[in-house]
């Protein structure tokens, strides 16, 4: 089958599944689940055929709409980057669909849930394949919509519906910048097609501007929950746990990173520096917040934020190595250079490498948490769990693999991808390097804390005491993801299909290699040993018991942004809105509209007085009118 048709199938399979479920199967959960999982399996098969079919950058575009000279095409740009991302989305997505079969078995609204998952797969694949920024934006909004649907799946709970609204609104803020960035790109370059932009960059004819990458980055800040728009992601944990694994850990929040990698040709050094710092600060801040969380999913949510910060920082760091031929050259003044195939920069490669391993181990961790939550009747407080290591061996061991991967234990995937990022940071910016190493220490600290408290010791609640291992439909995806969390880190396991991206991952050589291993392992060990020494399975956080000031301070730091936004909305925006409403009432509605209507009514009253009903009075008016007309014709007035 030609690759363009395969790419079309990638989009159509989940769309058809969503349409069938939404139209016919809303009340029939079992059938909806079967169709959705079958669609995910079909999507995975077609994606693998497309990825390993070896076809890259094939032409596939149709004109979608034309506004004057601005034509929006609906097309596919399929390079190694898109192949890697499609691989992550389809494989991890399929495993999470399977897991959902078990997790959502007793949910009364399974039809809605699986329809939402299919809509999400459709829109996410659209983001991956989009060949222009406009189409990317359309699918970008669609994933936001499906995320909204799935966070608010249990909409009867006010916290869930609030979280869904919060996620949507916060994303709107970022997407506004994204839209402005697309407009700026079109304004300055006359095209939003990614292939054309890359060709112009290669030929030296691209107009660079700080505004374009920074505005587009706003979209990534919203979607990937970077500071200062990170507030929605922890709240999004109100959704079902497989949704958190799929959308809010593995794929959708990583779409921001992917989008940055897609637009790497537009980057300028200043923008990259800003991106690097945003990612670095987010990584550290979220790691600090994660230490004081008691909800198992909130810990994972903050760790997701932190890891996304790593990826954003990696993108900003690595691509600083490239020097544009002449960043601010006038348009069209470039030399006639053969448009070479665009190579992916080291930053893109390191970010995507971490995205790949993170998708595996974070999906694994979330699904493991989902398995625990399912077994313990939706008990999410880690201080009320405990003793699960013996009762749920498969979940425990796979979760352990995930923990080791995220903290950067040698021989697990996270070690290698984090190493690549730290190496980039060491070469480029010592301060960023120091912050990222500190974040790595904190990562080990909070993950081992979670692991130790939730799985060891005695069961501290009835739910945990009666927990037992979940069925194979949930453990098999865990095992598959655990395998991925180990092998995805080794370069020799990466198929040739991804070499265009993953082949560029920076690898320290010789002495610096061992330096990096020592620093990475050392940071991990410090955090690990501290956590083992300090946290014991108990009913209360020892930090809270012994030094409540620190604990309270960290809690304050966690809610700091929410407080600021709350204050802003409540005290500034609301008052401004009241003022504007008052002005509208008085001036617009009062003066302009009611005043205008009143004036017309007044004239009407006057005119009505002329109408007296006596024949000869009209003759007098006639005489008056003739006199006026005569005077006017004679030029009297």
């Amino acid at each position, binding site marked *: 089958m030609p690759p363009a048709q395969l790419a079309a199938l990638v989009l159509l399979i989940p769309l058809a599944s969503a349409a069938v479920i939404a139209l016919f199967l809303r009340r029939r959960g079992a059938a909806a689940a079967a169709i959705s999982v079958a669609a995910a399996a079909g999507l995975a098969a077609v994606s693998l055929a497309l990825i390993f079919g070896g076809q890259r950058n094939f032409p596939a575009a149709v004109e979608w709409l034309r506004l004057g000279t601005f034509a929006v095409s609906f097309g596919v740009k399929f390079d190694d980057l898109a192949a890697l991302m499609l691989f992550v989305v389809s494989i991890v997505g399929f495993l999470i669909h399977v897991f959902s079969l078990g997790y959502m078995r007793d949910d009364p609204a399974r039809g809605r849930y699986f329809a939402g998952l299919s809509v999400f797969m459709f829109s996410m694949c659209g983001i991956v394949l989009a060949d222009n920024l406009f189409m990317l934006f359309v699918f970008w909004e669609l994933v936001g919509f499906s995320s909204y649907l799935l966070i608010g799946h249990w909409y009867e709970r006010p916290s869930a519906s609030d979280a869904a609204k919060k996620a949507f609104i916060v994303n709107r803020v970022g997407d506004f910048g994204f839209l402005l960035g697309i407009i700026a790109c079109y304004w300055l370059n006359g095209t939003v097609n990614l292939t054309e932009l890359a060709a112009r960059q290669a030929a030296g004819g691209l107009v660079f501007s700080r505004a374009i990458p920074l505005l587009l980055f706003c979209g990534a800040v919203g979607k990937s929950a970077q500071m200062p728009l990170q507030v929605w992601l922890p709240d999004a944990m109100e959704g079902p746990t497989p949704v958190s694994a799929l959308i809010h850990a593995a794929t959708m929040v990583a779409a921001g990173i992917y989008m940055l990698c897609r637009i790497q040709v537009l980057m300028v050094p200043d923008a990259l520096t800003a991106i690097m710092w945003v990612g670095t600060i987010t990584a550290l801040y979220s790691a600090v917040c994660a230490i004081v969380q008691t909800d198992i999913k909130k810990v994972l949510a903050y760790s997701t934020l932190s890891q996304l910060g790593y990826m954003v920082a990696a993108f900003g760091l690595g691509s600083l190595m490239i020097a544009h031929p002449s960043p601010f050259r006038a348009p069209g003044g470039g030399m006639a250079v053969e448009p070479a195939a665009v190579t992916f920069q080291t930053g893109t490669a390191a970010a995507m490498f971490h995205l790949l391993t993170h998708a595996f181990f974070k999906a694994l961790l979330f699904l493991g948490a989902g398995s625990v939550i399912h077994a313990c009747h939706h008990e999410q407080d880690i201080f009320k769990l405990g003793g699960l290591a013996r009762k749920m061996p498969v979940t425990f061991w796979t979760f352990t693999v995930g923990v080791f991967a995220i903290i950067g234990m040698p021989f697990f995937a996270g070690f290698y991808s984090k190493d690549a990022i730290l190496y980039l940071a060491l070469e480029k910016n010592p301060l960023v390097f120091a912050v990222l190493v500190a974040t790595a220490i904190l990562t080990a600290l909070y993950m081992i804390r979670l692991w130790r408290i939730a799985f060891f010791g005695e069961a501290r609640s009835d739910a945990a005491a009666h927990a037992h291992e979940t069925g194979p439909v949930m453990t098999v995806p865990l095992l598959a993801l655990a395998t991925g969390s180990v092998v995805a880190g080794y370069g020799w396991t990466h198929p040739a299909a991804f070499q265009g991206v993953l082949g560029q991952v920076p690898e320290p050589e010789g002495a610096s290699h061992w330096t990096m291993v020592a620093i990475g392992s050392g940071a991990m060990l410090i955090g690990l040993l501290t956590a083992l020494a300090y946290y014991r399975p108990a009913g209360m956080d020892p930090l809270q018991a012994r030094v409540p000031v620190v604990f309270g301070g960290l809690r304050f730091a966690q809610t700091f942004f929410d407080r600021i936004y709350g204050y802003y909305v409540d005290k500034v925006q609301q008052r401004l809105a009241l003022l504007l409403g008052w002005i509208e009432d008085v001036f617009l509605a009062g003066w302009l509209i009611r005043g205008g209507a009143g004036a017309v009514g007044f004239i009407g009253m006057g005119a009505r007085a002329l109408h007296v*009903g006596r*024949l*000869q009075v009209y003759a007098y008016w006639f005489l008056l009118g003739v006199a006026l007309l005569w005077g006017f014709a004679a030029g009297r007035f």
Partner: protein
Amino acid sequence: MSAPALILAALPLPATSGLDHYLVVSALLFAIGFLGVLVRRNTLVIYMSLELMLNASTLAAVAFSRFNGTMEGNVFVFFIITVAAAEVAVGLAIIVALFRLRHTVQVEELATLKS
């Protein structure tokens, strides 16, 4: 000599009459007609006053035609007489119908447009 002849003989009338004289007569006729329309209460009399105004205009048209030595004014007069005859036929029919309906032709009693 009779009294009117004496008055005419006493007035300093010009030997010949020009355009101005005809126009003055026309304007007087028009003004009398319009005054009748304004002040009379009987619909039939108002109608006669309207006819008087029409005739005033025909007189002016004939005078201009004679003064200019062209025939347009005369042609206009024929049209006006024709239309006026048709109008009288319709108008009198309306007044008769109105009288049958309301048993009056006094305009102050015909004020149902505003009542």
